[in-house]
């Protein structure tokens, strides 16, 4: 069903039936396929351990540092097979990941953190300086704190640093992993607003992994639901948000008639069938 909807637009990034194994034994992804259209915001949803982060790391090729391997399937970016490229080559081509838990350089200042994002760029200092200004426009708070060490900034500010740092690479697509983690709801909203603005005004494509299903679906236009290393459901974000199963199991909202365990079983069966 996704093929029908998505074939109308150009797929920037496509993941085809990948299988990921950690440490040669632990099977984490069992055939995940997804597509990210140019200019889209795609949400990757699911519970802890469903394989969201692994999927993102498979794309950005940060898996290697964690002893993970893509053993089956393929990943293409702009029509090219990018699976064998190193992370720095991928950043050069426009794929950058913002890792879960922010991962700021603690002992570097806020501004230095942002500048490391431009490490792979070769288009000159003045262009980088322009982009630094742009990042400060989106995150005025970072400008205020530009000289303080990143380790001493708040969680929200660190998330902004992480996103801003990725922007400095002038990416085509940002893989945003769990931006809401550990942040107050208001800050989460602020971060997602900025994601939306970056998407609309700067044309940055986003693939974001989130546990906060409600929030993620509100700001994305397509969603995939992952469970146990498989895509169990996908569709337009609005359709997913309305879907009864999604509501029940990921949003924690149940309809008027409370469901019995029989329905749960039905859902499980359906899921297996879908995958």
């Amino acid at each position, binding site marked *: 069903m996704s093929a029908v909807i998505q074939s109308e637009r150009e797929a920037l990034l496509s993941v085809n039936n990948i299988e990921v194994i950690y440490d040669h034994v632990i099977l984490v992804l069992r055939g995940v396929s997804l597509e990210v259209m140019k200019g889209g915001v795609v949400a990757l949803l699911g519970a802890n351990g469903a394989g969201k982060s692994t999927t993102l790391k498979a794309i*950005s090729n*940060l898996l*290697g*540092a*964690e*002893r993970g391997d893509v053993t089956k399937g393929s990943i293409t970016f702009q029509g090219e097979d990018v699976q064998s490229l*190193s*992370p*720095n080559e*991928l*950043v*050069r081509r426009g794929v*950058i*990941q*913002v*890792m879960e838990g922010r*991962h*700021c*350089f*603690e*002992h*570097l200042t806020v501004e*230095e953190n942002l*500048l*490391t*994002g431009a*490490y*792979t760029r070769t288009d000159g200092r003045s262009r980088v300086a322009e982009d630094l200004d742009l990042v400060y426009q989106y995150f005025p708070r970072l400008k205020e704190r530009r000289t303080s*060490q990143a*380790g*001493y900034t708040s969680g929200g500010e660190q998330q902004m640093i992480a996103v801003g*740092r*990725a922007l400095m*690479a002038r990416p085509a697509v940002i893989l945003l992993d769990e931006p809401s983690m550990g942040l107050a709801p208001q800050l989460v909203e602020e971060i997602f607003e900025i994601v939306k603005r970056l998407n609309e005004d700067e044309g940055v494509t986003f693939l974001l992994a989130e546990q906060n299903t409600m929030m993620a679906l509100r700001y994305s236009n397509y969603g995939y639901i992952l469970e146990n290393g498989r895509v169990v459901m996908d569709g337009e974000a609005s359709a997913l948000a309305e879907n009864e199963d999604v509501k029940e199991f990921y949003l924690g909202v149940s309809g008027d008639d409370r469901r019995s365990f029989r329905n749960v079983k039905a859902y499980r069966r359906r899921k297996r069938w879908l995958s």
Partner: protein
Amino acid sequence: MAFDLFLLEVVISGLMTGVMYSLVALGFVLIFKASGVFNFAQGVLALFAALALYDFLAEDGWFFAVFGFTLPVWLAIPATALIMIFLAWVIERAVLRFLVKQEEIILFMATIGLAFVLEGLGDLLFGSDVKPLDIGIPQGASDLLLDNFNLYVEKLEIVAAATAAVLVTALAIFFQKTRVGRALRAVADDHQAALSVGISLNKIWVIVWSVSGIVALVAGIMWGSKSGVQFSLSLIALKALPVLILGGFTSVPGAIVGGLIIGVGEKLAEVYVGPLVGGAIENWFAYVLALGFLLFRPQGLFGERIIERV
């Protein structure tokens, strides 16, 4: 008055020895900063650099045997620097590359292995006899200080101090102001994040081992000029350990200050405390000092603050 002068002389001699320790410690700091690994082979790198330099300069070396002439000092030093860079590249290719995913302790053990391999290689290539290294650094006491202040200070030590000052300034600028320096600090902070923004760890490692190889060359020149190029040079590395504990493993200025404190401390202790306990405390005093520091300030004087947010 005579007593004070003696004290001053002891302190100065301690400071100068300290500078020599600092030069070795600097190389450790660089690699530790970038990879969190204590490079056991740092002392051997200094030895290897000194051996290679000697080879370019002396008529009983390989270079002379192959090409029939020796290099002048101004050419031999850059040539040795190139060798150190090449060595860094080889080490990255042959050893580090395969250990990227491993724990730091495994990398540490790899550097122990590397130390022995390099030492054996040095022995094999250049022989194990003590070689006098003379690159024209003036020897003996500084007449100026001796005549005017009645102070005995070795010229070599003054040169070493000046070199260390230049080296540290250059390194500070490199780390703080350049793009690569910033990337090095980023890698030191968070490997994964550095990878994610497109910094290639392999390249960074070659750079950092090259830089610390060149620092080792400077240390090798100074120690070699002082006491000849000999294999005990690699043991000086162990003296760098208390220096690092004092100054902090991640701090370039810390390596300098730590070296000075250890140098002065052990000289003073030898002179004033030594007689009370039967002497020869110079050899272990540094470690006692380091132990005290570990108890009260484990990150060292200038080590990066362990950032904890509450």
